[in-house]
């Protein structure tokens, strides 16, 4: 089998494995059987391996680094989001519940790539043939994958935070519990708090219930991942400027892609300030991070698809 065929077969396999791992991860969230989680993880790792094979084989087929067009960026992005979640969120932060959502993001990324930017492996056009752009792209995709994980964690944080607040208000004045976010679910392990009214009936701790980990834990992992991503993204922007200087004779030209990567950078800088300096933890900072995530998606997709610029290399 030649490398191009292998790459495309592995791509399809990746998509199915991620999809399967995603379903299993959500099943684990619903049923809380450890076995499901273990199987989901094995399938996710198999998917990531297939993803890696697809990337490497693509590089062999095109005889260059396998990140030269939107299709390839997407393949690498999907891989890094899954691996990043397994390593940082499951491994370091010990949160199992994010994985299903990251897999969903990767499945969508791959599906969009297959639908909108399929390209046969081919050499790069001369402007893209520089080692600075190779560095720039690696940094940009790595930063994007971490921002994406941070964005997913932040969205889940907002959902969970809302349900925790509702649950607290139930404890306080008896408003009915919400359904989404599952603050108080029957099958979840509950830590028991003394009833604030002191009536003797134990009340659940809103932070512990439901399918999602506590809002505080989600907030923390989101912050850490974004703080990790930020310097990488900064470096990506700088490497891009160094490349632009060589390729086009100016380091910054307010090309739409440059503009949007600056905008994304700015929003996450705002998030970091809100978090670490102004003590704006919680919802308000989270909203900034979600805006940053949206800006990242615009930088990644919209600029390549709809806004004309020197950077629009979707066809390689």
């Amino acid at each position: 089998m030649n490398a191009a065929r292998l790459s495309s077969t592995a791509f399809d396999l990746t998509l199915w494995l991620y999809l399967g791992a995603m379903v299993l991860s959500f099943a684990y969230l619903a049923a809380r059987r450890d076995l499901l989680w273990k199987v989901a993880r094995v399938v996710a790792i198999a998917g990531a391996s297939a993803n890696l094979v697809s990337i490497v084989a693509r590089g062999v087929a095109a005889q260059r680094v396998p990140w030269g067009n939107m299709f390839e960026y997407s393949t690498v992005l999907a891989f890094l989001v899954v691996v990043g979640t397994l390593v940082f969120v499951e491994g370091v932060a010990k949160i199992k519940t994010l994985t299903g959502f990251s897999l969903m993001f990767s499945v969508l990324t791959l599906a969009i790539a297959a639908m909108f930017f399929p390209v046969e492996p081919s050499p790069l056009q001369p402007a893209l043939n520089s080692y600075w752009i190779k560095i720039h792209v690696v940094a940009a995709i790595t930063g994007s994958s971490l921002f994406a994980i941070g964005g997913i964690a932040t969205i889940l944080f907002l959902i969970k935070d809302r349900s925790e607040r509702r649950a607290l208000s139930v404890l306080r004045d008896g408003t009915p519990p919400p359904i989404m976010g599952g603050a108080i679910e029957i099958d979840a392990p509950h830590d028991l708090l003394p009833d604030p009214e002191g009536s003797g009936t134990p009340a659940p701790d809103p932070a512990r219930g439901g399918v999602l980990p506590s809002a505080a834990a989600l907030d923390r992992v989101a912050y850490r991942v974004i703080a990790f991503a930020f310097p990488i993204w900064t470096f990506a922007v700088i490497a891009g400027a160094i490349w632009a200087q060589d390729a086009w004779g100016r380091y910054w030209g307010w090309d739409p892609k440059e503009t949007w990567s600056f905008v994304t950078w700015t929003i996450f800088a705002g998030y970091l300030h809100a978090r670490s300096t102004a003590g704006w933890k919680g919802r308000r900072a989270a909203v900034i991070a979600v805006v940053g995530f949206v800006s990242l998606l615009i930088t990644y997709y919209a600029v390549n698809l709809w806004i004309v610029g020197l950077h629009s290399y979707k066809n390689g």
Partner: protein
Amino acid sequence: MTTRPGPTVRQSVALVWRTLRSMRTALILLLVLAVGSVIGSLLPQIPNSPERVGRYLDDHGVWGTFLFRAGFFDVYGSWWFALITTLLFVSLAACLFPRTRAMMRALRQRPVQARELDAFRHHAELRVDHGPDAVAADAARYLRRKRFRVSRQDDGVAAEKGVLREVGSLLFHWAFFLLLVGVIVGKGTGFTGRAVVTEGETWIDARANYDGEIRTGRYFGGAHTGLGIELLDFDDSYRRNGLPIDFVSRLRFRDREGSPLGVEEIRVNHPTSRDGVRIFQEGFGWAPVVTAALDGESMWSSPIEMTRDEAPDGVPATAMPWRGAIKLTAPEPDVMISLELWSDYRAFANLQLTGRPTPMLVQFDPLIRYSVYVGRIADPARSSIDTRGLRRVARGDLHAARSDGTDVPGVGELTLSFPELRQYSVLLISRDVGIPMVLAAAILVLVGLIPALYVSRRKVWVRAEAAPGGALVKIGGFALQRKDSFENEFDAIVRAVGARSSASQRTSERPGPDERVTTS
């Protein structure tokens, strides 16, 4: 009648300064700058695509005119973009001065002793069986080894770690000023323009020789280098499928006096620099040498730099013919010869036979199809092919290395020949002395950012008092960041302080769970 006194000038200045000093102002300005940038990415911009701006203006009437007046088609060069940037930097400076002063003070000062150690978030109490002096000495040694800054006063030890966070943060923030200076100096004293050089010809760096517009900074004195650039050879190579491999210009440089300085190749992504100007490979095209004679008298014999027709959707750009014109204003009436070049005859033939456009990647029996016009030339510019006021009187084909003649009524016998087909190269020439500064600033931004994000600040105090059979030791401390991992560090310190004692006993509790919920 009395009016209430307004705020004095001093009060107003103080208010403005206080506003600018707040980080919120800076962040709002930064976000406003981001919003402005977004607008610039959504509307066509004059520096990037003037034609699209023209089309937008045609389509949008009053609204377009309003946007135009407000600078929305040159957002990044508009007064309001500059104003926001200025305010942002003023605000940033206002933030940074007090922080820098405080940091300098903190760096000079030794860590300060504290009393009430059990008031800190982390605290512990130990009973040990050796004296307070030994305890303090042990604690100081251990903390020094752990790279804390330590100060000891009697039996009290004060230690802190992580000032690098603030140092890095300040470095990061101040670096933006270096960036700003680099940009202003570079753009202000520099220029960018385009040179079109044909194989075998020499182009001299002087204002008049630039092709089209040249963008100069306000403080660029017009001192062009006089550098000579001779294009020895241009080479474009393609793969079988028509994708380009590389574009290379081989250049010989000459100094002001015309003496050769050496030969260099530049290609896409590999510019060169000479005499403080950088030279980039930007574009290329065909420049056929065509001679024209009227009644045997030579009127024209130079290369003509042609431009390629815009390709319709679905047609590769390389399949399109190239166009140029020869304008003769000496005869009466004027004569214009418009030229259409097919660099690969097979592509032309194929189009005639099958109607299918074919990419022209190499030179192969090139063909020029010409039309002769007489009348009054409206636009004398070399590159324009404007037939207004002109009447076509003849047309014909001209193959390379051959000539062709035709009678132009009322003017004479026109003889054309096409001795050779050359290429021209478009070079981007720019001067920007700010680049090293901008690069240094970018490096400082990164170098400062890493400790600013990842170093955590923590403080620890140890105080020992003589007690029956040894000493009573109190240890207190807190971390400003990464509070959860400080817990282990603090425990290790407590253990180290009591380590010498055979019977050290911790008598205090760790922080309770309700405190831990708030850790971040």
